[in-house]
């Protein structure tokens, strides 16, 4: 614990408070601390110190009593999250307790949460892509949602800024719909992926297949080690080889001497002072002692993750904001988005039996969006588009072989046949009636109102999914795969873990919660830069954009603070 001052009670006043320590909270902490602000980070869960608190990072299956299986008690604790398929004994401790933190599904919605220092930055998929003006202009062009208050040129330098520090590996392609990042060397495709790539690119004009662009270091970078291809990322990486708050931004923040991080701090509300006309601090409940404590600061960054951020703002009522802080527009909690997920195709690849790979590359392939990017690629069936992720590997399920006994046993010691799959992620439109609201009938362990989630994918998302599956099957069949099987595991939103939009940015305070610098329109010393701020959802992974928006907003915050504007 040497690096973190957790005795935050003595000092109640800070220059800045950051709520949450995940991907965006970590960046807020780093930027604010580096600019000289005494910064308090409030974290709902425990401290997770890089390496020290990664208890499962080196476990092999046989090191776990049930080789990854969970007991009924453990399953009950994650009774909602278990649907995701991501919870195992190796990561169970990094997933929030669904029993202690209930929520109500008006319509089915899976809300995946990580309540610890670093949040879901310890669990994310690390796919990192820049958005383009295709994304930032989408709402303005087709009239769904409100216009983004920024364009690609506004955020471009901040993408470069965060990429240089975080370390993003990938291949430059020069595509307008998927701008290149400032890259470390790309990871490599395996032989089957190269083979499928060739065939897809030869047969389908405008479709590219590239190695995923990821926040994994392919060479040492800023004192962190390179990826060792263990693919045990969600247990915490001892090399600091992927981007997490724990390995990257929080240590940088801490090195300034300006950081205080307070664990077990459940933020109840942002305190707004009607007389002063601005926010003056944050009220927390200590998760262990139930003590209620107020902290004061000049600026507040709310980075609790999309739904929790909106939850906190809705819970922050005052005379000026009777329906939640910054909710003059009535849009707070609305326009909830996620990406569609688990729709695509899988097939078998003949040949290459004498080829295998070494290393468990924590990355796959990416097929950037190719629909609705220009007049030629315009679809009359849906708006916007989708991209694919996937990969090739030697798998095969030995239990499916119609064989048993000595020869069978010998055969399954060798790797099975090659398989290749792609699965799409489609953009979800910002619908006003996809929303969350405070539920005062269901209280959590600390007696606080919980959330009711009422959201669904609608016709456009369903049309996109239909195209995802059709195209996936067509591409894999054309690429010569055998036994191609299309799939659409129809599921509600939440599974993509890309929840966005509940406190959207916009140009007009009447229709949005935040301005172009992520400030609450009517409370300019409150900033929101996590998924809540997103005005549309693009079809590419959003985390890199949260990072860039956060660095940009922090820069603006400090500059405004110096000018006494906030």
């Amino acid at each position, binding site marked *: 614990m040497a690096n973190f001052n957790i005795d935050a009670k003595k000092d109640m006043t800070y220059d800045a408070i950051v709520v949450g320590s995940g991907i965006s909270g970590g960046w807020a902490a780093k930027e604010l601390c580096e600019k000289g602000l005494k910064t308090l980070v409030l974290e709902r869960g425990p401290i997770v110190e890089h390496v020290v608190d990664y208890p499962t990072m080196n476990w092999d*299956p046989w090191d776990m009593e049930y080789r990854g299986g969970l007991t009924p008690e453990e399953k009950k604790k994650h009774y909602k999250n278990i649907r995701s*398929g991501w919870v195992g004994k190796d990561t169970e401790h990094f997933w929030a307790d669904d029993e202690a933190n209930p929520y109500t599904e008006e319509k089915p919605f899976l809300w995946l949460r990580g309540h610890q220092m670093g949040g879901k930055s310890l669990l994310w998929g690390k796919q990192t892509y820049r958005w383009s003006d295709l994304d930032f202009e989408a709402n303005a062009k087709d009239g769904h949602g409100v216009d983004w208050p920024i364009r690609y040129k506004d955020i471009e330098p901040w993408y470069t800024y965060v990429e240089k520090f975080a370390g993003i590996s990938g291949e430059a392609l020069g595509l307008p719909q998927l701008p290149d990042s400032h890259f470390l060397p790309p990871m490599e495709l395996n032989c089957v992926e190269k083979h499928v790539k060739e065939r897809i690119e030869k047969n389908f004009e405008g479709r590219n297949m590239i190695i995923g662009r990821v926040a994994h270091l392919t060479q040492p970078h800023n004192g962190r080690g390179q990826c060792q291809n263990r693919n045990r990322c969600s247990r915490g990486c001892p090399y600091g080889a992927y981007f997490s708050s724990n390995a990257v931004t929080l240590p940088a923040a801490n090195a300034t001497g300006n950081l205080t991080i307070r664990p077990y701090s459940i933020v109840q509300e942002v305190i707004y002072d009607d007389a002063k006309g601005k926010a003056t601090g944050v009220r927390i409940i200590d998760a262990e002692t139930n003590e209620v404590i107020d902290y004061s600061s000049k600026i507040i960054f709310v980075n609790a993750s999309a739904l929790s951020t909106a939850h906190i703002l809705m819970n922050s009522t005052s005379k000026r904001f009777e329906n939640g802080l910054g909710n003059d527009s009535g849009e707070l909690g609305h326009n909830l988005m996620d990406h569609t997920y688990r729709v695509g195709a899988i097939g078998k690849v003949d040949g290459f039996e004498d080829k295998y790979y070494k290393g468990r590359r924590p990355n796959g392939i990416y097929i950037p969006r190719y629909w609705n990017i220009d007049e030629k690629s315009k679809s009359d069936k849906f708006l916007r588009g989708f991209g694919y992720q996937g990969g090739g590997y030697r798998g095969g399920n030995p239990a499916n072989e119609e064989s*048993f006994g000595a020869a069978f046993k010998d055969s399954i010691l*060798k790797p099975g046949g090659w398989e290749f799959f792609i699965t799409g992620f489609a953009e979800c439109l910002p619908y006003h009636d996809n929303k969350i609201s405070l539920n005062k009938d269901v209280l959590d362990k600390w007696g606080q109102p919980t959330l009711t989630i009422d959201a669904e994918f609608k016709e456009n998302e369903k049309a996109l999914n239909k195209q995802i599956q059709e195209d996936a099957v067509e591409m894999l069949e054309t690429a010569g795969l055998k036994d191609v099987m299309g799939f659409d595991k129809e599921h509600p939103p939440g599974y993509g873990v890309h929840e966005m939009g509940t406190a959207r940015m916009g140009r007009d305070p009447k229709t949005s919660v935040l301005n172009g610098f992520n400030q609450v329109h009517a409370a300019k010393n409150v900033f929101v830069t996590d998924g809540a701020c997103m005005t549309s959802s693009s079809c590419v992974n959003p985390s890199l954009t949260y990072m860039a928006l956060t660095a940009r907003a922090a820069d603006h915050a400090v500059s405004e603070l110096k000018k006494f504007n906030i």
Partner: protein
Amino acid sequence: MDRRKALKKAGLLAGATIAMPSLFSLLQSCKNETRLDWQPEFFTEDEAKTISALIDTILPTTDTPGGLDVKADMFIDKVVAQTYDAEGQQNMRNAIAEFNASCKGKYGAIFPELSDADKTAVLKEAEASSPKFNPGVWGTTVGDQQPVGFYRSLKSMAIWAYFTSEEMGENVLSYDPIPGTFEPCKPLSEVGNRWSL
């Protein structure tokens, strides 16, 4: 390459260490006909003997370890006892009873008491009649999965128990907990067996 030599040596050593236990279990198999040599947590003695006999038929001991050499039967018993809910446990119990009832009906005895030839006949039939597992993507089964039935799900559990055992994982399958590099298209001959991780 030294690394390959080291791997081969590891393989040889593995052969040496497993020779003894497999002989040992061969001696014990006579005893198995009357009673188990381990105390199940969940299974009754007949159920445990059924699971053990199935594993031994699917994954017998040869010059590599068999399922019983790595205690796959004992592990499955523990998994059912500790990670299944009451309903899952009851389903398992019913499935074994049904399987044995069918053996008894067709061959006159419960599975562990059948001759090797009859055991083989039972499994051949089960193979032909059990639906297969659909492929999975990121831990989710895709498409409409038909219920695979007791035989194939037990076979799957047995293979899981077998592959994730320390003996198989470290000494028989190719083991490399910290690969370091990613080599995308390596000759299989240089790797040997399936990667254990």
